[in-house]
C-alpha cells in the first residue's frame, strides 16, 4: 500500500506542481486567460461545495442509500470534461455527481436526484449512483464496478456507426481495471478503433484495498496488452489535465482510436458516506498530507494568486457563489415533490405491448397490467 502511494506521489511530484518554474504573465497562466482560470476555479469550488452540501444533507437523513463523494478529485471533473464538446458523451461509475455537473446537469437537478425528488435528473428513480441527462450527453451513473466500460465502448461504436465526430469519455476507478469487462472493452475498442477515451481516476484505492495489493503491474501497463495507448497525468493539476484532454479529444476525434488515461488523484473522503476516511487501509497522516499538499483547488488557487491573477476578495466572492449555488440546490431539492406513487410502474418498459401481461401484480388493468393479487 505504502509503496503504491509512494510511487503515485513520486509521479505526481515529478510533474509540474511547483509554480516556481512556471511562466506567468499578466495575461494568464500556461496559456489560460484570466477568465478561463477563474472559470475553472469556480467550477472546482462549486463541485467541492456541492459535495460538502450533499455530505451535510446525508448526515441529517435528507439523502439515503450510498453516496460516494468526489472531494479531492475535482480537478478531473473539470479538467477532463470541460474541454469536451456539448455533443460528446460521458459515461461513468457511481462517484459521479461532479462529473454530471461538469457535463451540464444543473446543481439543482443533481441535488434533487440525491434527495429522490421528481425534479431530479433521473426523476428520483436513480439516486446518487444513477444520474442521467441525455440532453447534455451524460449517460450515467452506473453502479456495478466496470459495468460502464463496455457501454462506453458501445456509445463510441454508435458514434462511429453513424459517422459522427464526437468522442466518448468513459471514467472508471482504479479497481475497475481488474474486471474482465475492462479487458474485453479495451480489446474491442482497439480492434474497431473506436473514438473512446478510458479514464482511470486512480486514487490508489478500490474502497479499502490499495491498488498495489491487487495488481503487480503499474496501472499504465494495463492497456498495452490490448494495444490501447496509455498516458499518465496528474489529475490534481487541473490545467495540465485540461490541456491534456483538449489535445487528446482532438486526436481521437481525428481518428486516433481508443486511449487510456491513468489520471493520478486522491480521494479525501471515505469510499462512501458509510465508510471511514482513514483506518486500517490508509493512515490519517497520509490523508492529511494529501489534503494539505495535493488539493486541486488549493493548487490552482495558489498558482493564480502567485501569478497575480486572483485576489483574496475575488476568491471569497467565487467561493460565496459556489456556496450559494449549492445551498440553493439543496433548498430546491428539499422543496421539490417526491415522486407520485401512481408512477411506480412507469418507465419499466418503453413499449407496453398491446397484447399480454408484462407485470405480475400491482400495475392494474389495461395493457401490460397486473391483474389480481401477486399472481
Amino acid at each position, binding site marked *: 500500500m505504502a509503496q503504491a502511494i509512494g510511487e503515485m506521489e513520486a509521479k505526481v511530484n515529478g510533474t509540474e506542481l511547483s509554480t516556481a518554474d512556471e511562466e506567468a504573465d499578466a495575461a494568464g497562466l500556461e496559456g489560460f486567460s484570466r477568465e478561463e482560470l477563474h472559470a475553472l476555479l469556480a467550477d472546482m469550488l462549486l463541485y467541492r461545495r456541492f459535495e460538502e452540501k450533499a455530505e451535510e444533507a446525508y448526515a441529517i437523513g435528507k439523502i439515503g442509500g450510498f453516496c460516494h463523494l468526489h472531494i479531492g478529485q475535482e480537478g478531473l471533473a473539470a479538467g477532463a470534461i470541460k474541454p469536451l464538446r456539448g455533443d460528446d458523451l460521458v459515461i461513468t461509475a457511481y462517484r459521479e455527481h461532479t462529473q454530471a455537473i461538469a457535463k451540464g446537469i444543473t446543481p439543482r437537478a443533481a441535488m434533487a436526484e440525491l434527495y429522490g425528488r421528481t425534479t431530479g435528473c433521473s426523476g428520483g428513480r436513480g439516486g446518487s449512483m444513477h444520474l442521467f441527462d*441525455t440532453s447534455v450527453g451524460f449517460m450515467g451513473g452506473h453502479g456495478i464496478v466496470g459495468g460502464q*466500460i463496455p457501454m462506453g465502448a458501445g456509445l463510441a461504436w454508435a458514434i462511429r456507426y453513424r459517422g459522427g465526430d464526437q468522442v466518448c469519455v468513459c471514467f472508471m476507478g482504479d479497481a475497475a481495471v481488474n474486471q474482465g469487462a475492462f479487458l474485453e472493452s479495451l480489446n*474491442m475498442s482497439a480492434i474497431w478503433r473506436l473514438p473512446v477515451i478510458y479514464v482511470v481516476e486512480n486514487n490508489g484505492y478500490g474502497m479499502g484495498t490499495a491498488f498495489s495489493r491487487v495488481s503487480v503491474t503499474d496501472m499504465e501497463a494495463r492497456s498495452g496488452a490490448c494495444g490501447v495507448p496509455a498516458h499518465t497525468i496528474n489529475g490534481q493539476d487541473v490545467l495540465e489535465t485540461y490541456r491534456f484532454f483538449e489535445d487528446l479529444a482532438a486526436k481521437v476525434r481525428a481518428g486516433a482510436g481508443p486511449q487510456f488515461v491513468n489520471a493520478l488523484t486522491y480521494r479525501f473522503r471515505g469510499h462512501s458516506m458509510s465508510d471511514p476516511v482513514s483506518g486500517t487501509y490508509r493512515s490519517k497522516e497520509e490523508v492529511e498530507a494529501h489534503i494539505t499538499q495535493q488539493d486541486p483547488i488549493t493548487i490552482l488557487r495558489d498558482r493564480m494568486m502567485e501569478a497575480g491573477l486572483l485576489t483574496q476578495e475575488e476568491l471569497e466572492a467565487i467561493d460565496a457563489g459556489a456556496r450559494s449555488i449549492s445551498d440553493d440546490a439543496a433548498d430546491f431539492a428539499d422543496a421539490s415533490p417526491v415522486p407520485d406513487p401512481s408512477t411506480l410502474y412507469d418507465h419499466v418498459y418503453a413499449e407496453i405491448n398491446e397484447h*399480454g401481461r*408484462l407485470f405480475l401484480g400491482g400495475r392494474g388493468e389495461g395493457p401490460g397490467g397486473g391483474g389480481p393479487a401477486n399472481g
Partner: protein
Amino acid sequence: MAEMTYRDALNAAMCQEMDRDDSVFLMGEEVAEYDGAYKVSRGMLERYGDQRVVDSPISELGFAGLCVGAAMTGLRPICEFMTFNFSLLALDQVINSAAKMLYMSNGQIPVPIVFRGPTGAALQLSAQHSQACETYYVHAPGVKLVTPATPADAKGLLAAAIRDDDPVAVMEGELLYNVRGEVPDGEYVIPLGVADLKRSGDDVSIVTHGKMVHVALQAASQLAREGIEADVLDLRSIRPLDVDAILETVARTNRVVYLEEGWPFAGVGAQIVSLIQDEAFDDLDAPVVRVSQADIPMPYAKNLEQLAKPSAKSVVNACRQVLYLPAA
C-alpha cells in the same frame, strides 16, 4: 408461403428488418465470416457488409455491453449468443444495464436490443451446454422474452423483437434450426404477447413454450390414440404473457400440464401454476402438474440424458395424472 427451415426463417427476419432500418446491426461470435455457428446468418456479411454484420471476440460480457451502449443511443443491435449458456457471462449487462436503464434514467434511455441464440439442450452436450435459460431473463422486469417453436413463429417473433423498443431475448434451439415449415412470404411480424394454440382438444391442456411444443404435440398424438384430446397451447411469448389464452384453455379443459425444458425450481411453470391458482382456481378439476428437466445438471451419458429430459411419455403420464387415469 414458402417452406423453409427455422434457421432460414430467422435469417429472413433479420434481413427483413435490416433492409427496412439502417439502425439494425448484428454482432456476435462467428456471425460474419463463418456465417454463424449454426449458419443462421448465412450470407449476411456479403449482403450488409462488416459494419453491420460483425464478428466479435469471445467476450460475451464485453460485446453484450457494447451492444447495450449502442442501443442507448437508439441503434438496434441484434446481439447473438452462440448459445444462451454463454450469456451467463453477460448477465450483468442484460440485467443491470439493459433491463434497468430505462427505469434508472426515468424514461430517458430506452434500450431497443435483441439478445438471441439457442437455449436448452441439444444432444449429449453435457451440463454446461444444455441449460434452458428462460428464467434468468424473464425474472427481471425490463426484459421481454419470446421462444419461437416453428419457422413461421421464428420469423414473425424475431421481427417483432427487433422492432420492439425494449430488450427482448429471443430463445431458439439447436434442435429447432433444421425444422422445416411454411413461412409467410414478405413482411411478417407476430406481435409479442400472443400465445398460439398449436393443437385443439377439450380433455386436457398442455401449456408449454419453445422446443417443448414439439414434445407436447407428440404426446398429444399418443393421447389421441387413446381417445384423449389435448389442447397444446404454445405461449410463444413468456413476457409479455398471454394470460387470457391460458385462462381460456383452463376454463375449457379444467386440467392442465405445464411442460418446460428448464429446471423445476422457480421455473416458468412455477409462475404459470401460481397464476392459474390465483385467477382460475375454481376452473380446475385437478392440481396442475408440471413436467420439466430433472432437477440435476444435464448428464452426458445418452441413457441418463434421456432420463433427465422431458419426454412425450412423461407428458402423456402427466396428462393421465390430471385426468385421474393410471400411468400408461
